[in-house]
């Protein structure tokens, strides 16, 4: 039975129905348990640890620092350089430690998701490295990486226009649900990861794989943005806990 068949049939019923309970007992619009902690790495300029469901991810920020080789430096702004990497034991079966094409692509979309939030123009010719290490993966790693990277950037004292918050929504058995875990991810008809800048009202990450009518897709985006707003609060809490007040970090 193909995905499209399901989603097309259920088109009329996919309006954030919240009756069915999910694999892990969550409601359709409920996030997985989320925990963010900043300043967790002694040698990084900024860092954060996130648990989002069973995802366990460390992000370290280094910089602004000098770009090597210098000819890659941008004359008017800093270069943001995101790297996404998974530990060999983060998934089953074990994966090779060499970067995959998927890793490269996720590094690119992380970069695009975060760049609009950073005052890069304050650090011409320099580089800001954001290294995300996925220690354990449970679906939605890219959104978790973006959430942690944002907190780590603030932790590094880098001035931000806004906090980037990221979350996916998807469709399972015709129902739109928030923040899919990996059991759901594999079963689901579609997955829509989104990153959002609440102050600026901008979507900075948007991907989708699956088969969805436009309306269902945009409903997914709306639900994912709802999730982002919830996560934004948690990010602020994590920073407040560390700094007393998070506002100054956002200008």
């Amino acid at each position, binding site marked *: 039975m193909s995905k499209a068949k399901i989603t097309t049939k259920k088109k009329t019923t996919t309006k954030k129905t919240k009756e069915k309970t999910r694999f892990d007992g969550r409601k359709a619009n409920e996030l997985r348990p989320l925990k963010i902690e900043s300043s967790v790495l002694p040698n990084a300029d900024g860092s954060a640890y996130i648990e989002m469901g069973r995802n366990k991810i460390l992000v370290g920020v280094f910089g602004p620092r000098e770009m090597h080789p210098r000819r890659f430096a941008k004359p008017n702004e800093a270069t943001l350089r995101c790297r996404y990497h998974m530990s060999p034991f983060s998934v089953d079966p074990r994966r090779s430690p060499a970067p995959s094409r998927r890793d490269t692509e996720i590094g690119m979309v992380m970069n695009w998701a975060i760049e609009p939030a950073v005052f890069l123009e304050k650090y011409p010719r320099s580089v800001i490295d954001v290294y995300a290490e996925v220690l354990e993966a449970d679906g939605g790693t890219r959104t978790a990486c973006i959430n942690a990277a944002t907190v780590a950037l603030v932790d590094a004292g880098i001035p931000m226009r806004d906090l980037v918050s990221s979350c996916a929504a998807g469709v399972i058995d015709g129902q739109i649900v928030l923040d899919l875990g990996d059991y759901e991810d594999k079963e689901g008809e579609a997955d829509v990861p989104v990153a959002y800048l609440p102050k600026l009202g901008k979507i900075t990450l948007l991907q989708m*794989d699956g088969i969805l009518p436009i309306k269902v897709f945009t409903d997914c985006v709306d639900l994912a943005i709802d999730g982002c707003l919830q996560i934004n609060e948690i990010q602020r809490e994590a920073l407040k806990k560390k700094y007393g007040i998070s506002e100054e970090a956002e200008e």
Partner: protein
Amino acid sequence: MASKSGIVSRLKRRKIQEVLGAGNRMDGRALDEYREITLKTGPMEKTSGSAEVTIGKSRVLVGVKVQIGSPFEDTPEKGVLMCNAEFTPIAHPTFEPGRPGENSIELARVVDRGLRSAEILDFGKLSLIDGSAVYMVFVDIYVLSYDGNLFDAAALAAIAALKTAKRPVHTVKAGVITLTKKTQALKILRSPLAVTLAKIGDTFMVDPTADEEEVLDARLTVAFDEDGNICTIQKGGSDGITTEELHKALELAQVKAAELRKHL
């Protein structure tokens, strides 16, 4: 796909934005207008299927090969689809020979994800001996000339090559695989086509040129199947878009996808 921070890029951007301010594009096109598109299927004889697409001065050749190989460990009874993209150094002065860069990896991944999420093939029917011998479908995207919008050209060429591909037919008797002289179409179940929009300033336009890609703020690629469903989305570029912009962009893309489909 160069950096937009250099002086040349900034001058280029200023010029493009000036013209856009008057509702025009550098090459005189309307914002929702594609450049000329050509599609030729079957140019390569040694493939199972092939197609060449030009969109303006961009040119992409896709070759499909169907061969016997080993299945993946976690899907022992299924055939395999592999997408690969090569930015040949003849395509643009800035393309260097060597290992695939980020942009060619993204291109291959987006086309691959499009084909996969549209479930274009019944992979369960592409196994010869479960666990040890299945058909491998290689889709090689060969970029021969670059002037922007490789996503749409590659997605169109890929599906056109797949739809016209003929795979070898083998018989299996007592665990022995024998090649027959027959061939058979791949039976493509769905045909996703990609439409790419660029946002420069606050203006959206379809089918960006290399110059427009160099200076764009955001890029949105949407693949649609024949029923108008979205199969894949990829946002690129270092600016965000609002939900309103997204809605308009999706509507425009859906219309353009239907237009593109006429070439198939």
